[in-house]
């Protein structure tokens, strides 16, 4: 694919029928439950393959394990990863563990995609609708959870979102005309929108009122429960984005919030978008159209109230 544009996985064309995809992602625990952490890490790692339209095939564990970590905790993390990769229809064939002070877990994932189904973030076209498939706020909510500020309903919603696979895309890519796709992770919604807009030579116009977020994310943002990554993201794209003064500050913070195992950001023609949204509404209730692509303006992202 080349290195100039920020794609989700590396892609190598094997022949006219097959593109090999490879990706790796690893991070420290975002939740207390080791089994759930394992699932989140796996859903997050495999998401890069989905973001390119592919199907995961093989995965390898990468595990940084503190010496004093009880064996059953380590086992639960790996079991979470195993179960999630299994759910994705792929296999864990091995891995590597090293000792480290802070635990970290993730996977290297290999997948395949037919060249005509290969999705990148550079194919968006003028007039395309931008769709987001998961609600925002995992960075803010996991920060709040560390401080014991989350109720059980919110924790459950957050976990459900982070452990759910973005696997719907492998079918969608065959049925619908998708122009560009990426997954929303560390750079936040606007950071990944920026990458897509920049790579496609367009300007993304986002309607902040349409952007889905998890319950309580706004209240927590307002109260200053915001991870450092969100501020780094704001700095990162400050010069490339124009946010209307009518957008509440907490909403802007949520749109910069770094996501773990976030949803897919999909760019497709309007006619297709309506059919597509109707088809995924049931399985992904938060999915919705959050904006569209306009011809290139002086900034890459415009956020309207």
């Amino acid at each position, binding site marked *: 694919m080349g290195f100039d544009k920020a794609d989700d996985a590396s892609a190598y064309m094997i022949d006219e029928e097959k593109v090999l995809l490879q990706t790796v992602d690893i991070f420290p625990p975002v939740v207390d439950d080791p089994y759930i952490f394992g699932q989140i890490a796996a859903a997050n790692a495999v998401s890069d393959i989905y973001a390119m339209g592919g199907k995961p095939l093989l995965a390898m564990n990468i595990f940084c394990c503190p010496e004093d970590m009880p064996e059953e905790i380590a086992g639960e993390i790996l079991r979470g990863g195993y179960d999630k990769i299994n759910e994705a229809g792929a296999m864990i064939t091995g891995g590597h563990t090293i000792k480290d002070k802070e635990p970290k877990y993730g996977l290297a994932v290999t997948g395949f995609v037919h060249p005509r189904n290969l999705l990148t973030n550079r194919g968006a076209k003028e007039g395309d609708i931008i769709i987001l498939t998961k609600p925002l706020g995992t960075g803010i909510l996991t*920060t*709040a959870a*560390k*401080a014991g*500020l989350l109720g059980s309903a919110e924790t459950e919603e957050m976990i459900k979102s982070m452990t759910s696979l973005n696997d719907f895309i492998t079918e969608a890519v065959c049925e619908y005309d998708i122009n560009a796709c990426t997954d929303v992770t560390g750079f936040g919604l606007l950071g990944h929108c920026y990458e897509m807009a920049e790579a496609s030579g367009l300007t993304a116009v986002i309607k902040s009122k349409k952007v889905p977020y998890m319950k309580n994310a706004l209240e927590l*943002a*307002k*109260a*200053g*429960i*915001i*991870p*450092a990554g969100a*501020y780094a993201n704001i700095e990162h794209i400050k010069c490339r984005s124009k946010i209307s003064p009518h957008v509440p*500050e*907490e909403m802007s913070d949520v749109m910069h919030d770094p996501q773990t195992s976030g949803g897919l950001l999909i760019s497709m023609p309007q006619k297709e978008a309506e059919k597509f949204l109707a088809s995924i509404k049931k399985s992904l209730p938060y999915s919705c159209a959050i904006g569209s692509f306009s011809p290139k303006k002086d900034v890459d992202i415009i956020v309207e109230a």
Partner: protein
Amino acid sequence: MIIDVKGEVCPVPVIKAKKALKEMPFGTLEVLTDSDVAVKNLEKMARTENCLFSFKEEENIFHVFIKKEGKENAGQLKEEDEKSHEEHVVKGPKVVAIASDRMGSGDRKLGKILIKGFIFALTQMDELPASVLFYNSGAHLTVEGSSSIDDIKTLEAAGAEILTCGTCLDHYGIADKLEVGSVTNMYEIVDRMSKAQSIIRP
């Protein structure tokens, strides 16, 4: 009060500062931190808590000042501020809970005259209440058209915290008519009541 959260990362500084702020009836909280992210988050927290915010940086340490407003009159001397602070800490805050737009249960008209007189008398007391809570039909007293507005504004200007229950404002459809103080919720109402040394109910 000063709290030191150097070396702590978010959300710890915000949580600790919020807790410290809740424990003090008013005055200035100083937070020492080495994280610029914590400074930004503390600013948001201060705004949500209706507090004044400022900070200075000295040798890579941020001194963040969060001031719980309203407990001193403009122009009053700092010593007095600190003195009244001490008094409050010693005695514990006095909270007035106004649950109705009338005082007592007899004649309706008389009840309204009495509550107006009660609120006026509050403004004349030597020791002001730390908070005045308005809920149920008491919410009618802090909105446009209430004959006690001026007295409640006097209480607020003198440093009393004026809180009206949001659920009640919504219930009576007067949420957009609030004229004095701020909107609150049941957590805050319970919090003020449980921290009060005495609760006065007309």
